[in-house]
């Protein structure tokens, strides 16, 4: 149980120190990038001239990036919520299974969307056709998402086994 306490504390720390300020910063940035398009350089990692030529596309990329960041933060929130069930010693609650599946589905979607976004971003703003076949954070994110989905299935089987065991006299 000590490991669970450490994990919950770490996730709480990340939630308070990183996620909540990030939510505010992202909301601010979603508005600011329309006022000051040069701020998009931070996300797109390119020079100003490329952004100016396709400002609409750059802003669209910025919005998609912010949406993906929001989804990732939502995953942290769901994980935090799920850990509370573990602390209450209710690991086979239906919410745990649903949350794990939701986290997995969202992380996989974010991983795929990020890969596509980076690929298209480099093509549009840097005129580079670059495919990263190595170990990229996006591939890791997809793997993590799929792992959560598998974990959800495992928990579903375990819940069924537990129910059957409880109803065996």
């Amino acid at each position: 149980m000590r490991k669970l306490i450490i994990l919950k504390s770490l996730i709480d720390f990340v939630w308070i120190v990183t996620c909540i300020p990030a939510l505010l910063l992202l909301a601010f940035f979603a508005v600011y990038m329309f006022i000051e398009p040069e701020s998009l350089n931070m996300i797109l990692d390119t020079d100003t001239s490329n952004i100016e030529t396709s400002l609409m596309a750059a802003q669209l990329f910025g919005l998609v990036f912010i949406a993906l960041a929001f989804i990732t933060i939502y995953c942290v929130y769901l994980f935090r919520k799920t850990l509370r069930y573990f602390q209450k010693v209710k690991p086979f609650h239906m919410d745990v299974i649903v949350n794990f599946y939701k986290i997995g589905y969202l992380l996989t979607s974010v991983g795929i969307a990020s890969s596509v976004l980076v690929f298209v971003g480099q093509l549009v703003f840097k005129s580079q056709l670059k495919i990263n076949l190595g170990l990229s954070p996006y591939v890791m994110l997809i793997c993590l998402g799929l792992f959560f989905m598998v974990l959800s299935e495992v928990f579903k089987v375990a819940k069924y086994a537990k129910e059957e065991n409880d109803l065996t006299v």
Partner: protein
Amino acid sequence: MSIIVNLDLILAQRGMKSNELAELVGITTANLSILKTGKAKAIRFSTLEAICKALDCQPSDILEYVED
């Protein structure tokens, strides 16, 4: 469910109460209630043996198959 548990009937015939049987068999009254109401998904041979011994009956007296 197509397996019917006739424990109530046997208990009435023997004039025994549920809690007495639960005590004799060594299971909780809650578990006995699960068995009586037909909510149980399985029964251990050891439990069935203990019930048969306590009620002096055969497994077929307690369990009955009825086609759906």
